[in-house]
């Protein structure tokens, strides 16, 4: 029998507000344990939540780009359960009146667009962190109250690769919106996956496994591949899939049943009495829509059209919002889209990659980069020197292109007299190439140009060199 894989993803994303969802503590990551808490996020007796306006603005943006229907009234509910990282023993979440419902995300499947339905987007508070040390566990409450949205997909995903694509696309959109940094290592994006198999011609879904402990997109794909295989084998052997939670073991590349004790699970949701309801009107939605930035796909098409870039270059430049913004800032100073694109997508990215740095933390100011590009254009330095000497210096930030020029003595030499002398010497020493050229092997001149460049320690203007050589050799 042939089986169809049915996957639904639940993605939790931390929002990039400065403060927590229900209190004024900072959301900064990686601070000293238990140093970013207050009575409210600690759930101290008597404390109360107050909702952060920015969290609504950010989550509205996310819900809108996911094409969701925004609810007119949203409400918070309490989800009750005991866990030491949950200081109130309930999580303020949303149950039957979430922020948004019924959206979709488009992914590309064999060059064909495929819509993955979004069931709902709701708001909730994050829990703290537990560190297990064996005999005991340590609790750090810093993360308590960090704003989260939970994005629940429909079971529309039909392969581990599609799941991978869905996550990649989701991350791209949310980081582009600057709603979240979606950093899985820091836990700002977390994903659980539901997977089941059913016969291709059946409309009925099989028993599903919920897979947790997925720490990267790759882990999601690997775990789903493993799990699909495991379920298929089970079914083919005439067995049955148990509905259960399974943990992905990254080291062993397997999923294992959580073998949970038969503990009662009943979250006893009820409306949060400490928070009044929130009405979201058309005006709020329009404001949020206006604040939406141009998304990567749209921007890429515009770059291709407006700046005559190749698909490839436009793709690189729009892969991250800071990069695309940077590119357009450069264009304001120097309206040479092709040239700036070559430098940015080429040398600058290569240099950053070599340094293992991320574009978002670039220190090089657009002004300095443009200054360097201009010097190359004007023949003041050659591009090799720019790439190898200037760029590595200015990319560190703080240094001016003009200073480096003086410091390193790399100003391009276009003086015919000076270059002429070196050219004469090169012609004298390279009889073979000279003869080759004179016999019609026009390419031979490139070797000679190279020798002159070398003789000038790279400072000669290659164009001038070629001209001088041609002139002398045709004499």
């Amino acid at each position: 029998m042939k089986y169809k894989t049915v996957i639904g993803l639940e993605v939790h994303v931390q929002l990039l507000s400065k403060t927590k969802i229900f209190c004024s503590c900072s959301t900064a990551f990686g601070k000293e344990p238990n140093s970013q808490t207050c009575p409210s996020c600690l759930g101290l007796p008597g404390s109360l939540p107050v909702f952060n306006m920015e969290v609504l603005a950010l989550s509205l943006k996310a819900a809108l780009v996911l094409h969701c229907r925004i609810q007119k009234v949203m409400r918070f509910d309490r989800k009750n359960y005991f866990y030491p990282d949950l200081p109130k023993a309930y999580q303020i979440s949303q149950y039957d009146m979430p922020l948004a419902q019924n959206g979709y995300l488009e992914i590309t499947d064999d060059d064909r667009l495929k819509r993955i339905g979004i069931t709902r987007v709701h708001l909730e508070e994050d829990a703290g962190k537990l560190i297990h040390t064996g005999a005991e566990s340590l609790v750090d409450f810093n993360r308590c109250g960090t704003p989260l949205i939970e994005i629940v997909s429909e079971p529309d995903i039909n392969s581990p690769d599609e799941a991978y694509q869905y996550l990649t696309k989701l991350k791209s959109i949310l980081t582009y919106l600057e709603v979240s940094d979606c950093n899985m290592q820091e836990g700002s994006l977390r994903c659980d996956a539901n997977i089941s198999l059913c016969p291709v011609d059946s409309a009925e879904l099989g028993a599903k496994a919920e897979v947790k402990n997925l720490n990267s997109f790759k882990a999601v794909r690997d775990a789903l591949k493993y799990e699909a295989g495991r379920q298929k084998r089970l079914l083919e052997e005439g067995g049955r899939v148990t509905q259960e939670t399974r943990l992905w073991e990254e080291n062993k590349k397997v999923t294992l049943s959580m073998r949970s004790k038969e503990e009662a699970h009943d979250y006893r949701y009820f409306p949060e009495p400490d928070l009044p309801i929130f009405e979201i009107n058309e005006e709020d939605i329009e404001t949020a829509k206006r604040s939406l930035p141009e998304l990567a796909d749209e921007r890429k098409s515009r770059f291709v059209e407006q700046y005559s870039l190749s698909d490839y270059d436009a793709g690189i430049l729009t892969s991250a919002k800071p990069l695309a913004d940077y590119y357009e800032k450069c264009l304001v100073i120097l309206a040479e889209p092709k040239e700036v694109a070559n430098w940015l997508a080429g040398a600058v990215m290569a240099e950053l990659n070599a340094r293992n740095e991320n574009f978002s933390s670039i220190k090089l100011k657009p002004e300095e980069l443009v200054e360097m590009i201009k010097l190359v254009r004007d023949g003041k330095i050659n591009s090799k020197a720019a790439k190898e000497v200037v760029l590595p210096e200015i990319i560190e930030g703080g240094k001016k292109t003009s200073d480096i020029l003086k410091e390193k003595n790399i100003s391009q030499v276009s003086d015919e007299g000076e270059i002429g002398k070196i050219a004469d010497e090169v012609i004298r020493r390279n009889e073979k190439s000279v003869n080759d050229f004179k016999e019609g092997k026009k390419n031979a001149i490139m070797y000679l140009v190279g020798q002159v460049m070398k003789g000038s320690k790279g400072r000669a203007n290659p164009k001038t060199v070629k001209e001088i050589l041609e002139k002398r050799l045709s004499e």
Partner: protein
Amino acid sequence: MKLYELSAARLISLLEAGEIKASEIQESVQKRIDEVEDRVHAYATLDRNTETGSSKSAGGESVLDLKGIPVAVKDNICTKGVPTTCSSRILEGFIPPYDAAVINRLKKANAFLLGKTNMDEFAFGSSCETSCYGPTHNPWDLSRIPGGSSGGSAAAVASGEAILALGSDTGGSIRQPAAMCGVVGLKPTYGRVSRYGLIAFASSLDQIGTITKTVEDSALLMNVIAGGDENDSTCSNEDVPDFTKSLEGGIKDLIIGVPDEYFVEGLDKEVEEAVNEAIKLLSGLGAKVERISLPHTKYAVSTYYLIAPAEASSNLARFDGVQYGLRRDAEGITDMYKVTRSSGFGEEAIRRIILGTYSLSSGYYEDYYLKAQKVRAVIAGEFKEAFKKVDCLITPTSPTTAFKIGERIEDPLKMYLSDVFTIPANLAGLPAMSVPCGFCGNNLPVGMQILAKPFGEKTIFKTAYAYQENSQWHKRKPSL
């Protein structure tokens, strides 16, 4: 002159006239505490720390100035640096690192904070008997309960162990003990006073209010504690009038509604007579009295005892031994939770947690919690209609006077039914005050309850003040 016997308003005028000093008032009250606290047991914690003492009334810049008048605070209101335990073993040793909004306001207004008053554990009770510190005794008859749950605050004010006190009222916890101790108790409109720092029992019903010797003192204290708060999303930004100005003016042509459903079987005959006499007096002052009907009153107790324990079961889940308070050691985390909670909570707390957990649990939510919320809407709607026709309502505060310690503690349902007249105001979020209106043959005080529409405290003050100006009940003192 026994300063501890005087009202805050009287003491402030003496202070302003330069006839006494604040320290003399404080000493008088402290001495009174030394004298009677052994017998009354109004306090859970007495704050005699001179260091916190000096900060207690230092640096106030508010125009509302209590000039060092001693105030007692119920043990469920957080006080920075002073133990706050809700009279529960589970909060043993808990010292809040922050002040409740009302404590901030009291400090700014130069109040002198005496300590934390005894209460039913987590405010679960109507008798002050469920405190882990043992019961408070009614100053009028030490063998009787002071009412609850703010029994400590009411007994402290009645016995002169405090001039003013704060209580909290979820189903009558200010008004019922005020009635039983012969003092004035006001539960303000839900949202009138910030709940920030009030350890929650039932968040949608809880409200902090005043327990005082006179109506005037209640207005004075309300001026200090009422008003919006950025830390409480459910606190209203509605304008706060100067309540002391709403006292005068009389009640001519005021329409008083008297609901039939509050004068029914189970109401003590002497209580009924006292309240009827009071209504007659008000009518004599020019008010118009109308009998009205609130037919859903009889569903209030059921509604309340489904909603309040449900919210409580969630609010009290945080007492799990992890971050503060009691922890009993155990092997894994789940066992730690269970042994800690089972030994930290008293019998009534456990009863309500189980009841509340049940009414929220899957399969029962619709029939219990949700149904109760719908009936709550019906009850609130019924009041809304009534207040289109009348300015305020008058009822007895409690069906009986103070009962004996131990009398009802073994019968939870009977205990729950003693809140029958006070619960509706909480369900509808209304302001309501209990005012002394007489004594029964055995010299136990009786209270009448005045209710008004939301944010209608002014009407209550006006009515209660007119009554008090024309009666003597509030001037009687218990002999201790």
